[in-house]
């Protein structure tokens, strides 16, 4: 077929109407939605599942949690039980991860340490969540002078070097799990507050907020029902990334002798005790706590990264 030449002003020749046969409509309704619409969360889940590294993190995390719960129960040995006749045994059928210099079972102690690490991590993230979300939500929603002063306070706390402050608090309050969590939360919540505030500042100008206000919605209700659900993505990412920081801090403090106290086991304590074995060659005493602490940090970090990508609306396809 030759395309009509448009240079001249001759009349274009179209085929006469009777040659056109209307195409039959398919019986199916054209308006029907072929694929199910994906909500924000469904789409995020779909994208997260596709991310292999993040899934690897999630699976190792689930395994770690299962082992933290059942590991100490499975083992016939007690965490603090010493058996000097069985000290420094290499891994074997009866002691899967070997024993330490006091004859304590490393397998039991490793999973007991997992409990402590996960507990500290999750608690720190939860406390950060509660304080940070309330503070950031109020600050962002109120705006103006309130926001200004609330953010100055955050700025000052944010500037505190957190590990120094944690060490200081540990000295004052005495070592212990509760102290670690309190100490971590004192500076930790500011990051969450900043994120929530930034989001709320943007969101509060949207029409759905205005609509709620028109219907007489109170500040509390608007923040809780309208603003926060829309901020959940960044909040979850921040929480996932807080956990490894807290776990690291606990291990670090235990390592320098300010964390969990002997005879109880935490990965930091075990690694610190095992330092002396470098020259004597009982590799299992350092290897197992070192491996599992690294695995936990790895799992939370890649899961957090994956969530960040999955929950970012800009990357949505």
């Amino acid at each position, binding site marked *: 077929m030759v395309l009509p030449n448009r240079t001249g002003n001759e009349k274009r020749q179209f085929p006469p109407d009777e040659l056109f046969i209307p195409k039959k409509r398919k019986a199916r309704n054209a308006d029907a939605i072929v694929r199910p619409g994906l909500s924000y969360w469904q789409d995020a889940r779909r994208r997260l599942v596709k991310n292999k590294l993040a899934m690897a993190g999630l699976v190792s995390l689930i395994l770690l949690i299962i082992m933290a719960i059942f590991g100490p129960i499975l083992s016939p040995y007690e965490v603090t039980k010493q058996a000097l006749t069985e000290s420094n045994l290499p891994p074997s059928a009866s002691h899967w991860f070997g024993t330490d210099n006091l004859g304590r079972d490393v397998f039991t102690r490793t999973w007991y340490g997992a409990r402590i690490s996960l507990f500290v991590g999750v608690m720190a993230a939860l406390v950060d969540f509660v304080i940070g979300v309330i503070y950031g939500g109020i600050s962002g929603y109120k705006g103006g002078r309130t926001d200004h002063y609330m953010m100055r306070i955050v700025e000052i706390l944010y500037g505190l070097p957190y590990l120094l402050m944690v060490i*200081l608090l540990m*000295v004052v309050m005495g070592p212990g799990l509760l102290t670690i969590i309190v100490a971590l939360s004192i500076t930790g919540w500011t990051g969450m507050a900043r994120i929530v505030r930034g989001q709320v500042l943007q969101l509060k100008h949207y029409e759905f907020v205005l609509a709620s206000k028109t219907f007489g919605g109170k500040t509390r209700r608007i923040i809780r029902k309208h603003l926060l659900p829309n901020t959940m993505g960044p909040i979850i990412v921040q929480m996932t990334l807080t956990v490894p920081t807290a776990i690291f801090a606990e291990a*670090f403090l235990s390592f320098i*002798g300010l964390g969990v106290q002997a005879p109880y086991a935490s990965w930091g304590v075990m690694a610190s005790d*095992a330092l002396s074995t*470098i020259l004597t060659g009982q590799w299992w005493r350092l290897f197992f706590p070192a491996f599992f602490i*690294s695995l936990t940090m790895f799992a939370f*970090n890649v899961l957090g990264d994956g969530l960040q990508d999955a929950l970012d609306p800009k990357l949505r396809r």
Partner: protein
Amino acid sequence: MLKYIGKRFISMMITIWVIVTLTFFLMHAIPGSPFNQERNTNDTVRKNLEAHYHLDENLFVQYGIYLKSLLQFDFGPSIKQSSTSVNELLSRGFPISFELGSVALLFSIVSGIALGIFAALRHNGVIDYGAMTLAVIGISVPNFIMATLLIQVVAVDLKLLPVATWASYKHMILPALALSMSPLAIIARLTRSSMLEVLTQDYIRTARAKGLSPFKIVVKHALRNALLPVITILGTLVAAVLTGSFVIEKIFAIPGMGQYFVSSINDRDYPVIMGTTVFYSTLLIFLLFLVDIAYGIIDPRIKLHKKEGE
């Protein structure tokens, strides 16, 4: 610009003051006095000692005395090592910590950025995966574990480098390496992701179309913009290196500031704990302040006096 710097300076001074105050009152809330451990001190001796260190005065009077001496950069005497002052401890230990810290920081910045660039240029290639695996390991393995592993493998098994103390540059390699792993990993990841973003920009295509060499494009056009996010986190990284240095110094038996700090905690040596905390915090906050200002100078898009609520 000046107004912004002034504002930031004031907020920095307030933060430092908060830290000094917090540290002071927290220290004095600790049960137990520094003289408890010496069993043989009788009451008169103890009273004299307490009078000497102003421990018998009202808490607020002590606070005033401390603030006044701080303003003259005097951190007071060490209670445990009575002949030395905190300033002397600082001047003895800090240069070593500073050397270790700056070597580690420099190494992590240079190789982190290089690794990030190569990973971005060979996106999804072998180098990319290798570099990112290294980065994930660097972030996941805590520095004290890294240090022990390095000692075990490099020093004990292979006998390549000395293990402990602080004598020659050979002694510096392992601790600096252990200290720099996690900042290196963070920098490499950040550089990579921002490089990837920048490389898709139109002005990079323009530069390529003009026939610039790949080297010039990367260094002059891409890197400049890609490094902005890296500069923002430098402050946090300095903090990580400083505190990480405590435990690294303990493991490698390096006579730096970290050692004094950890031992002062166990000894309840108030002036040393306070001095070290205040000194490190001030250093850190000052560095954060510098980073903020540098950022403002480097990136012309940043409005230095942000309107609030935006």
